[in-house]
């Protein structure tokens, strides 16, 4: 290669870099954005008290329903509480409940579904009919009935949601384990005399974890929306605990004072979008066939 062609070469070399960035953004842009949004909200949740000079529960009747200003960034609610402060503190409840419900639900569901698929026979039949039974109720109505029956409170609402939540993981885990079960490495493990528990937990489950992770990520947003919805109906947190769903509920009649309900709802939207972007990204990464569909 001659020296004369060097500038042309470097000019050509620049173009691929730019298109490389574009390609990276195309492929990982949205998932990265999703991860960033989630990370930002986690930081907000951890540092909530440091972010605002107000207390989320302090009532100030002289400052009722103030529009957003420099003093109150997102305005104040009916009781004169600072909306920004309550929103920031509400992050803790929404993120924790969403993640706890999905993680615990996924663990219960995976174990139950995995055992069903591994043991087969009567037990499998029993377990799968049980999941069918739960799935034959509409989730929000069943959760609502259970939450109302257990009594209002964050823990009870989480329990109600868990009862509704595990079956879909059980179904997925069962179908995944059924596929792995007939693989040769499982036969080898059986021949080697490993215990069923060990085979299931150490060999089969790690090989079926991918789709489960995708469902978990995509489902956190779902769980956050459901919890906020139950809270909105008064079946979630006990007031005056700051929580996004109940904040929207407190502001739902205030159409003129739109800021009371708008901001907490927008917060829910961003978190859920974040988890959906990230979940889609993980799915594409684990299953390249689904990419760009």
């Amino acid at each position: 290669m001659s020296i004369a062609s060097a500038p042309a070469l470097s000019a050509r070399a620049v173009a691929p870099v730019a298109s490389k960035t574009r390609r990276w953004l195309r492929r990982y842009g949205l998932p990265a954005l999703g991860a960033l949004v989630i990370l930002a909200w986690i930081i907000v949740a951890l540092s909530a008290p440091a972010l605002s000079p107000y207390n989320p529960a302090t009532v100030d009747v002289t400052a009722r329903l103030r529009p957003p200003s420099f003093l109150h960034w997102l305005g104040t609610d009916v009781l004169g509480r600072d909306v920004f402060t309550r929103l920031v503190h509400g992050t803790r409840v929404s993120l924790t409940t969403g993640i706890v419900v999905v993680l615990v639900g996924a663990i219960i569901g995976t174990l139950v579904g995995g055992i069903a698929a591994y043991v087969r026979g009567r037990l499998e039949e029993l377990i799968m009919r049980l999941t069918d039974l739960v799935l034959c109720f509409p989730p929000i109505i069943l959760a609502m009935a259970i939450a109302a029956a257990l009594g209002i409170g964050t823990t009870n609402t989480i329990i109600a949601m868990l009862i509704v939540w595990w079956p879909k993981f059980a179904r997925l885990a069962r179908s995944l384990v059924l596929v792995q079960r007939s693989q040769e490495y499982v036969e080898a493990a059986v021949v080697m005399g490993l215990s069923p528990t060990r085979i299931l937990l150490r060999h089969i489950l790690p090989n079926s974890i991918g789709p489960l992770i995708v469902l978990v990520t995509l489902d956190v947003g779902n769980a956050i929306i459901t919890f906020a919805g139950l809270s909105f109906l008064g079946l979630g947190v006990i007031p005056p605990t700051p929580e996004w769903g109940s904040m929207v509920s407190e502001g739902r009649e205030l159409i003129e004072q739109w800021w009371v309900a708008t901001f907490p709802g927008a917060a829910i939207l961003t978190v859920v979008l974040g988890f959906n972007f990230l979940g889609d990204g993980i799915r594409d990464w684990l299953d390249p066939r689904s990419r760009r569909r």
Partner: protein
Amino acid sequence: MSRYILSRLVLAVVMALLATLVIFLLANTVPGDPVLAQLGDLAASNKEFVAEWRAKWGLDLPLWQRYVIFLQQLLHGDLGISISSQRPVLQDIRDFAPATLELASIAFLLSLVVGIPLGIMAAMRRDSWIDHLARLISLIGVSSPTFWLAFIMLALFYGGLQIAPGPGRIDAIALPPTSVTGLYLIDSALGGDWDTFRDAAAHLVLPSIVLAAATLGLITRTTRASMLESMQQDYVRVARAKGIRERRIVIGHILPNALIPVVTLGGLAYANLLTGAVLTETIFSWPGLGRYTFRSAVTLDFPAIMGITLIVAVVYLFINLLIDISYALLDPRVVR
């Protein structure tokens, strides 16, 4: 084939029976005390009054006896009497169902009429602005909380721009149309009362958009994905090689196969719309089943909760049965 359908049918009946047991246990063994929820603190502190009240509603009998009574009544089509409205639950449900049926059907139509063409266009013009628009709409539809979307719509179009009517099925001062079906649109059209028709239609716009949002997103996404899938099939390549016009390929070859998953999804989505209207109805003061369910849950009105959950579960089972059967008809391999 008929054996398959029969076995599905038997299974559905068994599930329905199990569902009654679950609902019964749920309503009767939980810590929430209907006495406190219904009578209030003052009346609940009067022991005699409470005992009398318990006996009246059969709450003093052993659990299994109550279940047998529950089943017996159920066989007679008797869902019990709502504690808070003092009326038969079935009658309550019959009164509240049309409002939900009307809202859910309009929302369902809306999500199909917008979602399917949008999904098709997004798949045909992949990566164009319409594809991005479709993705944006479906993402926001799936990710925004219904109750918040409802508030935003009301604040914007009712409070701000004042181009949409407020909550409720018709104007507060207007009289509802003479009831034939309970569906305001049909009833007013039957009576030739076009002012009421317009009024009812206008009141349906915002709630049906809100209710349709999530379903619309789901249908758009599914249509797009399944279009892309069937566009890559060999028979499409063959059709193209034969020189068939693009329009015909899409309508005659791609669409029929691409829409099969959409049809299944549609069935489930409709069931979800019927039952998922709780939040939408609460915000729009829509006198439907969702609001009724919510009120019953909050006041621990057990006969009402049991009745409505049971009916909804049966509808769910029935729709799933239909889906199973239509699958078997569409794809004979399922039966084996």
